[in-house]
């Protein structure tokens, strides 16, 4: 059928594609390359005009305070990513196993678990700052009630605890996403296989290990890559819980907040000028790309060759 229409002039094809291609290209693809080009220039204001080659990158990797801020944020982002990935994957998987079983309210439970994910990260960040607030804080009260008052401390004010708190809040918020994806994967398993396993006397652990886990492995990949891309550009949670400076003493500074500060803040507030900001964005983009390609390579090669 397709063939017989080849002869007609299909003017509508470019017409129908025009808006999507131009907006997507101009405002999503080109800006990223724009930043790459800009990262080779230095100067003040919106359009740095002095070509410096790799000058910005050399500054970023070798000079105080640039390298300290950069590698600090890099380390924090990796720690943050590892914590969130661990919590969201492990707990998300366990909860998904539970809610994929049929019990009274399991359907409702699934829906409810996604509720926090719909809220804005900003509002959630502010909310948990208030909950941890030493003056009013609800969290301290809970610790008191369960007899753990010795644990009461300014959680967000101590470098050692601030970053894990941010990671826990983000995991809490996006747990619903993991639960949703894992439950979808478990639901897609042929119920006859599960029945057969039960008849053979497989316990819950065996069922999880030999049937559920192998069949949702690709979903673990999807969940992890979504967390990866999200966390390597995470900004809102830092802004809400520890300001764009990543307080205390840059211990919660992530790539997202580093990029915001360096590119868009004034000099006194940690701005480094557009050229340096563009260099930071480019490095983050390269890291994210390598991660995504690695994921495609490890998890997706099979899938792609099958669907060809």
């Amino acid at each position: 059928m397709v063939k017989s229409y080849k002869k007609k002039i299909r003017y509508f094809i470019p017409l129908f594609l025009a808006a999507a291609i131009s907006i997507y290209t101009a405002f999503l693809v080109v800006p990223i390359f724009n930043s790459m080009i800009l990262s080779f220039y230095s100067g003040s204001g919106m359009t740095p005009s002095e070509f410096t080659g790799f000058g910005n990158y050399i500054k970023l990797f070798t000079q105080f305070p640039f390298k300290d801020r950069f590698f600090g944020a890099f380390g924090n982002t990796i720690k943050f990513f590892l914590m969130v990935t661990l919590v969201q994957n492990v707990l998300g998987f366990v909860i998904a196993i539970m809610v994929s079983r049929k019990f009274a309210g399991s359907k409702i439970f699934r829906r409810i678990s996604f509720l926090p994910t719909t809220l804005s990260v900003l509002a959630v960040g502010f909310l948990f700052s208030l909950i941890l607030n030493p003056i009013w804080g609800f969290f301290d009260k809970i610790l008191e009630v369960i007899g753990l008052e010795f644990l009461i401390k300014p959680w967000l004010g101590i470098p050692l605890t601030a970053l894990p708190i941010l990671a826990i809040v983000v995991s809490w918020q996006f747990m619903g996403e993991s639960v949703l994806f894992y439950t979808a994967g478990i639901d897609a398993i042929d119920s006859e296989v599960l029945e057969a396993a039960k008849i053979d006397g497989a316990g819950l652990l065996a069922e999880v290990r030999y049937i559920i886990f192998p069949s949702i492995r690709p979903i673990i990949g999807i969940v992890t890559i979504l967390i990866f891309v999200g966390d390597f550009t995470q900004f809102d949670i830092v802004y809400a819980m520890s300001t764009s400076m990543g307080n205390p003493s840059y211990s919660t500074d992530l790539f997202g907040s580093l990029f915001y500060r360096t590119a868009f803040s004034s000099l006194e507030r940690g701005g480094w000028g557009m050229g340096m900001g563009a260099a930071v964005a480019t490095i983050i983009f390269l890291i994210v790309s390598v991660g995504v390609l690695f994921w495609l390579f490890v998890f997706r090669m099979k899938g792609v060759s099958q669907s060809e």
Partner: protein
Amino acid sequence: MIKIKDGLLKSLLGIILIIYAVSIFLPILLMLLTSLKGNREIFTNPYGLPHIFNLDNYIKLIKISNYLVYFKNSIIVAVTSIFLILIISSLASFVIAKYRFMGNRFLYFYFIAGLIIPIKLGTIGILKTMITLHLFDNIASLVIVNVAMGIPFGVFVLTDFIRMIPEELSNSARIDGCSEPKIFYKIIVPLIRPALAAVAIINFIPIWNDFWFPLVLIRSDNIKTVPLATALLYGQYETNFGLIFAVLSMASLPVIIFYLILSRQFIKGLTAGALKG
């Protein structure tokens, strides 16, 4: 032996589930309930139900700030963006799904790549373009960025959906003398309504919650959106707990209500994406 261990394991998992459920509701309920308390009651009765449900904090919020304007701006941005995403991505998806032309497959993957490219990293380029186009500090800049961000998911879902529509339907229309564009809006559009709804629903939440782009692109108070207002008011009234909780509730309630009403379609749309992706 196995049975006992299984039973223990299951009750342990049950306990985890209950703790998890409580952890979801507690913070959200705390936020909503505290926003209904007077400032003194927040300290005298911090964790109980409010003695009287009063909306004073909300009334005060509307009086002391331009909250209604911020709210209106957010709605304008969300509705316009979603409307444009639906039109633009359904047109593109129709052509990609139904016609063979050079670069067809490439184009599909080109759009899909946007699902994983973090657009935030192009913000400097976007800011420069917006300044050149005189759209900096203009609400239209947010719409454009949202559309660019929404196209990949739109094309991803709609192309698949349109591919499943049998070609016979279009062919019989062709025999009746229907032009190709007419086939699009007479036959395809009515059939893909559920997919359009899914795209609209799933796009609403990130658009409503977006804080990054308004923060960079918007300066004037009268075009600020709800997330910007949330950050602004939180900074100004940090110690006025009742008011702050009202601010957070106002930012969250629209998405909570929206989600509770449409959660079934929402989960269906996302799940389909996850299994395919």
